[in-house]
């Protein structure tokens, strides 16, 4: 009985430093998803596409050329792009914030499309641009911050 206790004690003395070092060695905290280049590139591409559309609309809004029917392709493309980004964001663990942001972007495009069906006025474009600009920027800002955390070696 006494001998087995000695053996157990000796074993524990050998094992605990290994456990401690392994724990410290592997221990790092991750509270948010890693930087995702595809989200970064996808949002940047969508921003360009949206800006191109808004520049055009500033010129042709309230003319037959600016009618919704002539721009269905733009909305279709945006829906596909955003759907891909949403699936991507949803699939990554600890990425809930980015996923919600993409969801709000989808909602904004849905609302813009609904309004375009009724008609878009040139005077509205600057405000629309500003709100989309903020949405794109906030998503990219978070993605860049994730990248910086990795780059500074604070996440292992």
């Amino acid at each position, binding site marked *: 009985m006494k001998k087995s206790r000695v053996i157990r004690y000796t074993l524990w003395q050998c094992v605990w430093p290994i456990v401690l070092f392994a724990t410290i060695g592997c221990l790092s905290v991750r509270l948010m998803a890693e930087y995702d280049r595809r989200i970064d590139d996808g949002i940047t591409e969508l921003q360009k596409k949206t800006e191109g559309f808004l520049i055009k609309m500033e010129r042709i809004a309230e003319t037959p050329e600016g009618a919704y029917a002539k721009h269905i392709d733009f909305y279709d493309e945006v829906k596909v792009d955003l759907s891909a980004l949403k699936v991507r964001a949803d699939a990554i663990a600890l990425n809930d*914030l980015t996923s919600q942001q993409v969801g709000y972007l989808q909602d904004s495009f849905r609302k*813009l499309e609904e*309004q375009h069906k009724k008609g878009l*006025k040139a005077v509205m474009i600057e405000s629309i641009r500003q709100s989309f600009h*903020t*949405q794109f920027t906030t998503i990219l800002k978070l993605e860049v911050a994730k990248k910086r955390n990795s780059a500074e070696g604070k996440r292992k």
Partner: protein
Amino acid sequence: MPHKIDTDALLKKMLAAAGGVLQERWPRVKDYAEIEFRKLLIQAEHIKKLKFEKKITKDEARLLMDLQRNAMRSVLLTLEGLGILTVEAATNAALDVVRDAVNTAVGRGWKIV
């Protein structure tokens, strides 16, 4: 002429509300929050002006405000994310200190952890 939106007073309220939620993470993101909140308030004022001058209808004003609301939500999510990343970086920096201390204690240039 409709009442002017008191952007400074509203900005203070918004900053106080966000600061209360983000607490100790707040100082790190305050400057960014202030810039974004101010932009949104300026837009709200602009939309109100367009509506007052009858350049846009009530429905169009509602759309523009809905878009601003989504922009605001996105700003808040980024603020939350920046706060979380700050905590993450601080925690890992603390763990690095422990790691360095163990390696130093072992000595002989060994990096066992």
